[in-house]
């Protein structure tokens, strides 16, 4: 047995969890290897230390506070509880898409007017028509017809940029607050749009990023990493820039506000990540984090 193999068994050796044969084999290696013996000593120390920690229980007053908050949130949500279920939202989305698709086909065959839905639908392609003011607005075109149908709605697309900006904490906040696409997402998209569009927008953003000379796969991996902890976030912005003199990728993702009843994506998180560190260890690559809230009340 060499050191590399021995290290794989040392934790269980220290904790007494190895079979007799593997224990003997590891023991034999330990007799001849001072480095592994030193590591074993450290594992035994940490075993002793961890044994001192026991499960802790939630203090009574904290339990009462938390339960009271949960009950009040539950009471306010129960009226619409059924409609908040992701399965119900997904089913409703599919039904809407089927109905809208049917209406489009009927409209094409009868020469009637095509409906103008506000939500996005599957089974459509997009064509860029403008790219001003930050967000490029795309016109949707039915794939069913040979002749393009009239516009049936519009999407606000995510925006990618490559700049030489060298941000610090203050200028990041200013940039985030002033970003048009963040405000447009807040007014345009809902929670169910985020569920339906998040994969597509991640790819669109990566494609734009590649066209600007950026590293698209790393950007997609970063978005996926962020979405691990909160899946219902819709990517809206990416920028290749500097932060404190280091190369970074800034990722903006929109989601619903925390703890509220609004389903509009009025909260945008901004993650400033070092791409080189991300490859080695995602947890250590985050250089800045902040969020902006958009007030949609009219």
């Amino acid at each position, binding site marked *: 047995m060499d050191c590399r193999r021995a290290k794989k068994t040392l934790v269980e050796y220290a904790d007494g969890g190895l079979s007799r044969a593997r224990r003997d084999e590891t023991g034999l290696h330990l007799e001849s290897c001072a480095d592994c013996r030193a590591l074993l000593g450290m*594992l035994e120390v940490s075993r002793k230390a961890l044994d001192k920690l*026991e499960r*802790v229980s939630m203090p009574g007053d*904290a339990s009462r506070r938390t339960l009271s908050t949960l009950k009040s949130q*539950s009471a306010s949500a129960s009226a619409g509880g059924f409609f908040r279920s992701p399965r119900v939202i997904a089913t409703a989305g599919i039904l809407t898409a089927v109905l809208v698709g049917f209406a489009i086909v009927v409209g094409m065959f009868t020469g009637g007017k095509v409906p103008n839905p506000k939500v996005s639908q599957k089974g459509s392609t997009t064509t860029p028509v403008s790219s001003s003011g930050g967000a490029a607005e795309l016109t949707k075109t039915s794939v069913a017809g040979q002749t393009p149908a009239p516009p049936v709605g519009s999407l606000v697309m995510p925006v990618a940029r490559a700049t030489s900006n060298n941000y610090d904490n203050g200028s990041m906040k200013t940039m985030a607050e002033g970003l048009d696409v963040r405000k447009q997402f807040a007014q345009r998209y809902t929670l169910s749009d985020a569920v339906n569009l998040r994969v597509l927008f991640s790819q669109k953003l990566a494609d734009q990023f590649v066209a600007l000379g950026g590293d698209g796969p790393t950007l997609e991996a970063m978005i996926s990493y962020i979405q691990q902890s909160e899946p219902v976030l819709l990517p809206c912005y990416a920028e290749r820039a500097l932060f404190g003199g280091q190369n970074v990728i800034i990722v903006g993702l929109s989601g619903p506000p925390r703890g509220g009843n609004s389903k509009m994506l009025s909260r945008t998180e901004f993650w400033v990540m070092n791409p080189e560190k991300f490859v080695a260890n995602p947890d250590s690559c*985050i250089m800045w984090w902040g969020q902006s809230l958009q007030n949609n009340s009219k």
Partner: protein
Amino acid sequence: MSNPDEEGLRAEEQLLSRAQAGDQDALETIFNTYRNQVFSLAYRMTGNATDAEDLTQEVFLQVMRKIGSFQGRSSFSTWLYRVTVNRARDYMRTKKRNPELLSQDGDGAEPHEMLYATSNGPQPESSAIASEAQRLVQQALMDLPMNLRAPLVLHELEGLEYHVVAHMLRLPVGTVKSRIFRGRVKLAEILETHKEQWR
């Protein structure tokens, strides 16, 4: 014929459905059953009772909102662990970058306000103050980076098997084992400077 495990699962499913529909009694039962599991993990991940309380609240609010996405492929308890770990990672990242957004405890502040051991059931609050040794070990745990701390806490303190931790953290089992090994060595290095105090 159904076995007791299946019956237990069915009862749990019914409880979850009732909670989802806004049944306050069901919600309270779920909270009382799992609050210590969530709080304890949150405490070990954040090292701070105030943050652990906030995190516990966030986890149960998320559970209320997303209970429909729980598909029963893992146990509810495992699902709850995963939600807690994900929220804790998010919370700690946020805190690291924007401490003013969260609790008023600075990174250098005393992180151990209280500890309540549950090995012999609930204890009076006054008698459950953490020992100095426990405080030092928890402090050392907080000095570990999150990618080492999470698998270490889940396996060593919560007692979850390697493959369960791997599934939860979406990592290969080998990576989980390697991180636990590195985490324990690092923990010993940190504690070495205080060995007279904690041993």
